[in-house]
């Protein structure tokens, strides 16, 4: 050990003999304590997410809690803890059926459904979801709206099913046939008159959102 090395060592504790340096500490877990604020700010209206008292009313009320990676309550605790990646990878927001039961029952008035929408769009942007079914359904839906101004069930169903549940198409097809027989499905999409106007509005909105 040459003198130069000794000098760069931390100062010795008084009264102790010379000791070898301590090994380096492992890095702390990756947390993003600004995540809560980010989620709150990205949600329209007043989310009150910071008011959660972890009582579990949401998780108890949720019709699809059984299929979620985390209950909504756990997800909010994770948002608070700054576990950004785990939150955006969780399937929980994608299993939210927008039933608003938790919203009206929440004793703290947290706008849970709107927070789920926020987390969904954050997850899409981050490209973090592991199962693309739900995001793709949303995107397919958006495709029809952006091109026709209306949703189109048949197109939506076929486009989406062929991609995600090709094996289920034969099972579902008779159902579609039934609908056709009953006159409940259009074969071609309908387009609104002023599609150009809608496109202009959506384009401007997208610009404004990107600017944020």
């Amino acid at each position, binding site marked *: 050990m040459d003198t130069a090395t000794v000098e760069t060592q931390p100062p010795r504790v008084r009264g102790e003999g010379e000791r070898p340096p301590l090994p380096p500490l492992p890095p702390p877990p990756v947390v993003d304590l600004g995540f809560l604020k980010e989620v709150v700010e990205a949600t329209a209206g007043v989310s009150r997410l910071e008011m959660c008292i972890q009582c579990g009313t949401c998780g108890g009320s949720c019709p699809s809690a059984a299929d979620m990676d985390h209950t909504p309550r756990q997800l909010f605790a994770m948002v608070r803890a700054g576990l950004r990646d785990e939150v955006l990878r969780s399937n929980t927001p994608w299993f939210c059926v927008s039933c608003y039961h938790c919203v009206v029952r929440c004793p703290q008035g947290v706008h849970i459904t709107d927070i789920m929408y926020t987390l969904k769009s954050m997850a899409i942007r981050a490209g973090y979801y592991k199962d693309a*079914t739900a*995001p793709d359904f949303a995107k397919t839906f*958006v495709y029809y709206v952006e091109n026709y101004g209306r949703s189109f069930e048949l197109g*939506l169903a076929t486009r989406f099913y062929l991609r995600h549940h090709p094996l289920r198409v034969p099972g579902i097809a008779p159902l579609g046939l039934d609908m056709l027989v009953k006159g409940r499905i259009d074969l071609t999409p309908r387009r*609104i008159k002023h599609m150009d106007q809608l496109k202009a509005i959506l384009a401007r909105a997208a610009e404004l959102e990107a600017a944020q």
Partner: protein
Amino acid sequence: MKYLLYPGCSMERFSRPYKDSLLAICQHIGLELEEVDDWNCCGATEYIAVSLLPAYSLIARNLALAQQQASSGPDYHRAGDGRNSRGGAYTLIAPCSACYLNLSKTDHYMGESPILNEKVNQALAAGGLHYTPGTVEIRHLLDIIVNEIGLEAVRKAVVRPLTGLRVAPYYGCMTPRPDYKKRWSNPEYPTELDRLLKALGAEVVDFPLKTHCCGGHMTQISPPVAYELIRRLVHAAAQYGADLLATICPMCQLNLDVYQGEMNRYFDTTYRMPILFFTQLMGVAYGLELKALGLGQELVDARPALAKIGVEMPAAEAAPARRPRKKEGLPMPRMPGEEEMSHD
């Protein structure tokens, strides 16, 4: 006096019976409706998950169009008409729950957040439009019938009371909740549809799952999740001895009716719970022509239920009922009142 109508995409085709029957009963009771010209999709629950501002702008275009159309003439219904002074917000009827919620939510948040209001209007300006939050009041058709037309008037118009028909009133989620304007008697346990059905003479089941979820878009994304939700509802309706279930939302009707067969196949069950729109039942009670009400277009045959009150539909009108693959084996014990619907 006219009411503005925002029908929504579902009403155009797959929930055509809803539109047909609502137009029929509105014509019958003299409620004049006028569609918002060139309306576009409300985005359902999908658009907002992809991007926020475009979603609100998409919805706001409809509000702006409604505002423009209503302010062009004097004879559109406004809030407070007939009760307080004139000059309130223009009434816009949205019979679909998702549309109702999305339109209400956009109006509410634009009013609550000046930033959102400004941005949405910047986007609308690109299409030459503008919307001032609060100028349009979004209301569900059920709300209009119960609170504007009034149950007394409904009762008077009944010529074929639904006496003896046990109906489970089903509201679904997005109409009574989150209820920004506190229009409904309760977001958990509303009574508007219950009271309306009673006025039609039906025997109303105190349906505990009346505002529980029908599965929403889960039929597309994760069918097993949706089937489970459909099973719960159909089972509870059967448990409570309902002859049929009345809905106020196209999505609920679609999931419970069209996917009931798929659900039966998935769980190997034999539920046969007819799902009708409340407007169809109103039309039946008003004595309107059954075909004009879109009856017979449902996938789970409603004939046995309606036969109970002496309403006969020509056989040709009804498509053959789909049968479950297997008939044996019930995962659930038989509930009181379930017998009469499992004979099919």
